[in-house]
């Protein structure tokens, strides 16, 4: 019975870690994405940085962050920071693609009718880009659920605790106790966010 409570506790810990990381990455990614639609010159640099972050092997990224003062160290905070860096690119890229993909005639009409920049953003660009942006959030969420298992390597907790324990003791039951719930969460997130995406204004 205690095993089940442990699975349950670590599952909740895992989910909360993912929610916090994806929440921060979404806020940051969408804001940054909007800013970049207004500043074409910065696009290459920011997308390049976010792209490079994704190419760093995740275990290495977690490791690199440990010695960094203030933001690094052992524990959940460092783990969340690494997850944010991973989740940023899909949200950022999709925000940019979604907004830049708004029909030029629609944008021109919005300007020509005397909408302010803010009105164009909130009433035209974001609604029309919402599906694409949400698809980015979905991809970020699903990958973060998987990557978050590595957080256990630097003391971040979550379902990775079972996996690392199982690896150390060559106990596949332990590995499955971490892997199966993680896979289930990922499937649920994929299904749920996919459903919301389809519900959004069918344009």
């Amino acid at each position: 019975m205690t095993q089940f409570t442990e699975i349950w506790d670590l599952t909740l810990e895992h989910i909360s870690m993912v929610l916090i990381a994806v929440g921060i990455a979404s806020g940051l990614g969408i804001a940054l994405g909007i800013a970049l639609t207004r500043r074409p010159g910065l696009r290459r640099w920011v997308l390049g940085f976010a792209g490079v972050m994704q190419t760093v092997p995740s275990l290495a990224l977690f490791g690199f962050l440990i010695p960094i003062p203030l933001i690094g160290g052992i524990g959940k905070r460092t783990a969340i920071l690494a997850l944010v860096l991973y989740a940023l690119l899909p949200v950022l890229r999709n925000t940019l693609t979604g907004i830049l993909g708004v029909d030029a005639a629609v944008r021109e009409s919005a300007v020509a009718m005397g909408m302010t920049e803010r009105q164009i953003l909130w009433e035209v660009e974001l609604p029309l880009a919402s599906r694409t942006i949400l698809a980015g959030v979905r991809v970020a969420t699903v990958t973060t659920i998987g990557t978050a298992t590595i957080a256990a390597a630097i003391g971040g907790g979550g379902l990775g605790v079972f996996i690392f324990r199982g690896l150390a003791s060559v106990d596949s039951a332990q590995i499955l106790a971490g892997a199966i719930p993680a896979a289930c969460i990922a499937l649920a997130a994929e299904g749920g966010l996919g459903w919301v995406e389809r519900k959004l204004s069918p344009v």
Partner: protein
Amino acid sequence: MTATDSGAGPRPAQVEFRDVSYRIGAKQILSHLNLKVAAGETLVLLGRSGSGKTTALKMVNGLVQPTEGQVLVEGKPTTEWDLVRLRRRIGYVIQDVGLFPHFTVSRNVGLVPRLEGWEPARIDHRTSELLAMLDLPPDQYLQRYPRQLSGGQRQRVGVARALAADPPVLLFDEPFGALDPVTRQEIQQQFLRVSQSLGKTSIFVTHDAREAMLLATRIGLLAGGRLETLVSPSDFLQAKGAEVEAFRACLG
């Protein structure tokens, strides 16, 4: 032929181009355009693709600013207007319509009145009135989305949207260019009826000489960024010049 304000009469010009030029790098798009558009007239800017007519049109609502010279609306240069305020006083209709796909017809047409802070009841009344005027029965069309309309219906909704806040000036950029010939003819007739009854000042860009003859009170012919001729449709039939003759040949 020089551009004078023939037909403008004693009334002040609603829109005026004062020695307007526009250049992108070394490419001269418009050269020394001088033109006055009187209140209530329909000026058609006729020309080939690349003649500068669309650029000239976009200067009126400040989508493009001249590199030299000034465009005045109601006597004030566009550079001195608050562009948001200016644009809400100018209706704009383009070939691709640009209706908001996520708004119903009702919200599309009522957009500028809403931005201007009209009461909802007044917006609803105005929206229905305009749709009825353009032969789109409001009870059938108000709640539709643009994707549920045909090309001609979309264009009429675009016209209704431009008229919504009762702007004194209307700009049309080849609005009927993408329509089939039958629909185009219907909507042109409708345009004539509406523009005559409303007395708006319209500037209309087209490459179709027949359309120009049908709709214009004056035709301004642009070629290579220069105003070649500025005459009434009846004088257009007698006017001289290679470009005029080229366009007249299209009248058949």
